[in-house]
């Protein structure tokens, strides 16, 4: 008898991803679904997808979902979590969503220490609208609105969300990961699982930033996109754990008992 070593997670619907070949969203979706399965939280999870390429996430995740207007995911997620404190609530946001139009909602949800998880897909570009400059676009990176490359004098600098958010006292766990290789995908999955567990344990706000390839708008092959993350993007956005107060939160909880 053959042994099953790889199958579709239960929390992922039987729909075909609309994402472009080589896009990181599909990978991120799959590993989130695997984590939901492994933690056995499908029935109590509520997801908040964004405006952007992942706006149709409810076609893929087999959990309850409510679509947020652009950038407002953390406001909605905060409210859902406070209304239903025993549910697991995550928002899924892109770089434009989190670091531009929704920076206030994201920043303040983090600062309030909302017991939610933000999955932050950083691909340096507005994907769904056709490749415009994002807050995380690299200096000199060409986009449709920076045709000569991002100019620091005219366009400012890439926004380092993990570095900034890790300064907030409300944040319990924050890690930057990548989905450009099997090893990194495994690391990302572990980080997501840790973030969800942090929420389940009631330890507060977690954010996982994922450096994610966008071959279509980067105008690169899928393989070169993965290389570009290693060679260029991760130099500006170094992966790693920026904050981990889980042990301290656990100790505080035990002391309180």
């Amino acid at each position, binding site marked *: 008898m053959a042994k099953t070593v790889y199958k579709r997670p239960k929390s992922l619907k039987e729909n075909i991803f609309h994402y472009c070949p080589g896009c990181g969203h599909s990978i991120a979706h799959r590993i989130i679904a695997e984590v939901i399965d492994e933690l056995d939280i*499908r029935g109590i999870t*509520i997801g908040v997808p964004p405006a952007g390429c992942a706006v149709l996430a409810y076609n893929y995740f087999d959990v*309850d979902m409510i679509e947020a207007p652009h950038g407002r995911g953390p406001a909605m997620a905060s409210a859902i979590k406070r*209304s239903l404190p025993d549910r697991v609530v995550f928002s899924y946001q892109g770089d434009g969503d989190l670091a531009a139009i929704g920076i206030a909602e994201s920043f303040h949800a983090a600062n309030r220490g909302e017991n939610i998880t933000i999955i932050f897909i950083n691909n340096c570009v507005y994907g769904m609208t056709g490749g415009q400059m994002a807050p995380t676009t690299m200096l000199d990176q060409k986009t449709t609105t920076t045709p000569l490359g991002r100019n620091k004098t005219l366009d400012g600098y890439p926004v380092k969300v993990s570095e900034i958010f890790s300064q907030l006292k409300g944040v319990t766990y924050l890690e930057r990961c990548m989905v450009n290789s099997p090893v990194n995908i495994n690391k990302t999955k572990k980080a997501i699982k840790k973030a969800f567990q942090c929420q389940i344990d009631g330890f507060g706000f977690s954010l996982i930033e994922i450096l994610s390839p966008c071959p279509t708008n980067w105008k690169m092959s899928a393989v070169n996109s993965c290389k570009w993350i290693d060679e260029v993007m991760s130099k500006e956005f170094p992966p790693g754990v920026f904050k981990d107060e889980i042990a301290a939160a656990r100790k505080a909880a035990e002391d309180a008992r």
Partner: protein
Amino acid sequence: MNKVLMSGNYVIGEAAIRAGCRFYAGYPITPQNELTEYMAEHIRSVEGGVFLQSESEIAAINMIAGASAAGLRVMTSSSSPGISLKQEGISSMAACELPGIIVNIMRGGPGLGNIRPSQGDYFQATRGGGHGDYRTIVLAPGSGQELADLTMTAFDLADKYRNPVMILADGMMGQMMEPIVFKKPKPRVYSKKFMLQGAGNGKSKFIRGLLLDPIDSEEHNWKLARKYAVISISEPRYELYNIDDAEMIIVAYGTAARIAKGAIKRLRGSGINIGLFRPITLWPFPELQLRELAAKVKKYLVFEMSTGQMLDDVRLALQGYADIKFHGRPGGAVPTPAELANVIAKIYKRNY
């Protein structure tokens, strides 16, 4: 039941909590801060009650959208410039058919305007306000007691039609103290199937406003339109005052109607018989009820604390049926009843 003396903003807060409101989000803006402060002090002491001071009006409206989806009775409040910011979320709630209460304690506009009572947001409130083909039910209380009663009604209507409901008052209504009796709210009728609380062992649900297929989107728009048509027929509310032997009728709502009542009282015994038609729902506007009145009375004066916005709805109701005049005080100016009585008397004598 006990009478209590309370200012309007507190009345709305207390009535909301009694009606089962369990989630409030808001951002400071004058002249409605007392309502936010009341909710901060009182909603958290009710079991399951959540108060969130949001980082912006935009966040507040999206917070109540989230809590509404989660199944709670929800409310946010603001004043004119803040309501403009909330429009994104109001449109979104209408699209997603999420019930919720938005209180607008209007102030002078446009722009930052001032913090005096005004009625310049009528168009914004009754025409949807945000983008897209939608309507918000708009209730315009005319007294402290009505603030209490209509706040409770607002929650019932929001649930019944799964639609945002706006309570449109102004700084005068918000600040004025009056004796109030809080009535017993009706029990909530709202199906769990509309709530997003996790799939359990069942099928997962989603709530969305994005419909990429134009045929689906068109049908969704028609579905909403059918709902609005039902509301238009079933929900118009209005008050008639002193109309029995009236030769001219003032059409006014909220604070303006209250001033008009004062003016009408002052004109009694002067040979000028004036009545009042006070729309209580601004959307749906009680159009047919006003037109019925035109079979008897042919002279109308619209009075608003604006340059003339409800005037459009009165024209839609009465044009060709009766004569319509207008008097307005925009930008935060509030006339006294005596001043308005003079205006009414002049118009009455000059034209009729």
